[in-house]
């Protein structure tokens, strides 16, 4: 269902010929920096690449390096070994451990400062070869959270320094605005983009490509997993794994195992609570901060990894219908691919900016 590792196995044509011709032109990159996933879209290929933004330090006394032949890992200067990406997630689930997360609630984690070097290598691998190319990258940043006092500045600067280290020109763009760029070309980039990620829910209201309101809340997928894990007494990794494998927010869930059913039930309640909380905040922020009169109905685009389960948009529609909104809604739809919409939107914005530089 929503598991990017399964999606990754889909057959893929490699490089679009039209784009290959443009290899001499400046290389534009859209880099979605998410709490759970990192996604990268490049202007010279049709592929979007993705990896899990997690790693797991392993004790080399327990596991010999030769046993890691099929595993992606980073080896440090002092012999320390970190399994990275999806492999780390799989290993952690097998051994019942929590993975290390370089990011927490949408921002660089203060607990994992040492991870920045590991993250730099993961990004280098994700972006691919840029040697000898004039390269520009738009990377995503969240808006300041309205329900938590953490600053975005440090996060933004660290990502800037990672890209600088890789020799790439960079600029930061709001994550939810990237959804508008990716999904609302037909509406001339007017709409409301909501990114339900792992660490944060980001919201942007845009009118003709111009940002009217952006904000974020610190409740999203991790919040659901944490509360569900607490309610059923298991580690959050396992809940995330079950959510990605079996979660359906509409239709019948055909799971016989009673404990799994209980977990899915708890997940459903917390999805509903998350949507309700976000909708209330959208109404309040719009009432408090938007001065412009929007005389046309706006589409709402729902995106992000947390919106992947089947039935999420239907549940969103049901919840939002219970509220009186301060704006008219033309339609509520899911992004074409909730995991790659931000990376694509950032690439569009980057290409637009680079064209403007000529």
């Amino acid at each position: 269902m929503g598991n990017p590792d399964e999606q990754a196995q889909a057959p893929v044509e490699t490089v679009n010929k039209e784009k290959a011709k443009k290899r001499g032109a400046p290389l534009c990159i859209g880099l979605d920096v998410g709490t759970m996933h990192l996604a990268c879209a490049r202007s010279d290929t049709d592929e979007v690449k993705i990896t899990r933004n997690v790693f797991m330090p392993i004790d080399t006394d327990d596991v010999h390096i030769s046993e890691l032949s099929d595993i992606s890992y980073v080896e440090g200067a002092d012999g320390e070994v970190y399994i990275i990406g999806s492999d780390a997630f799989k290993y952690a689930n097998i051994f019942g451990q929590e993975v290390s997360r370089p990011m927490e609630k949408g921002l660089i984690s203060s607990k994992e400062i040492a991870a920045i070097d590991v993250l730099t290598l993961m990004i280098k691998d994700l972006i691919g070869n840029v040697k000898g190319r004039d390269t520009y990258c738009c990377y995503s940043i969240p808006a300041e959270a309205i329900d938590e006092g953490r600053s975005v500045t440090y996060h933004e600067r660290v990502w800037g320094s990672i890209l600088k280290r890789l020799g790439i020109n960079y600029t930061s763009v709001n994550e939810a605005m990237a959804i508008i760029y990716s999904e609302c070309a037909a509406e001339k980039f007017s709409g409301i983009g909501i990114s339900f990620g792992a660490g944060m829910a980001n919201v942007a209201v845009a009118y003709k490509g111009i940002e009217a309101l952006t904000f974020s809340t610190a409740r999203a997928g991790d919040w659901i997993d944490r509360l569900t894990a607490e309610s059923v007494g298991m580690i959050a990794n396992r809940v995330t794994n079950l959510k990605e494998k079996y979660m359906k927010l509409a239709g019948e869930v055909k799971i016989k195992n009673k404990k799994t059913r209980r977990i899915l039930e708890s997940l459903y309640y917390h999805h509903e609570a998350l949507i309700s909380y976000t909708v209330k905040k959208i109404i309040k922020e719009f009432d408090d901060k938007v001065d412009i009169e929007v005389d046309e109905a706006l589409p709402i685009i729902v995106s992000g990894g947390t919106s992947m389960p089947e039935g999420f948009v239907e549940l969103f529609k049901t919840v939002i219908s219970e509220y009186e909104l301060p704006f008219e809604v033309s339609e509520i739809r899911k992004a074409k691919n909730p995991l790659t919409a931000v990376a694509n939107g950032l690439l569009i914005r980057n290409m637009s900016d680079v064209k403007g530089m000529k």
Partner: protein
Amino acid sequence: MISLKLKIKEKGLMIEIPGMGPVRSPADIDISNIDINLVIAVLRRSGINNYNIVSVTEDGIEKTISVPQELKKKVKDKYPTDTSVDKRFDRLESMMVNLLNRKFESKTHLSEEQITNKLDRLETLTQSIVNGQKHTVVHTNKSDEPVIEEMDTMFIPDIDLDGMSMKGSSRKIIEVNEDNLDEAADLLSSITRKEK
């Protein structure tokens, strides 16, 4: 017993005092067991001037300890200075922090006395540089624009990839873009230009 607290109200600064984990401001940090000179040196190196050190009695009565401004202040780049003096000053500052660090962590072959003697000599040297340094203030044209205080980048950790290597690749290709992103980028350019 009196304890000491470091209070930093400004948001988003990263403070790494040896012997403690990294802390992000705003923060109240208990520094009772840490050399106050080390704390001040670390703050100065990080370009953090806006802080208070407070003594707290057992009854919870707080009293702000005044830290001399010359100790707090980091020479701003806005004032052109003799760069060679600046470099020497920075180097000495690094050496002092390293020595204080070693003293705190006791991971050195140098004795406490040797470290203290070295620190004393460095302090004397630093003082002589500070006294001898002259600043020329350059008055720039006044502007209506608000003055933006550049954030010191020193608290952003250096990225050190020396000796690190990656095996395999964690990246997965998950889709082929079907949309014409070029067209979307052109449309975005034309719309945002019009709106401006």
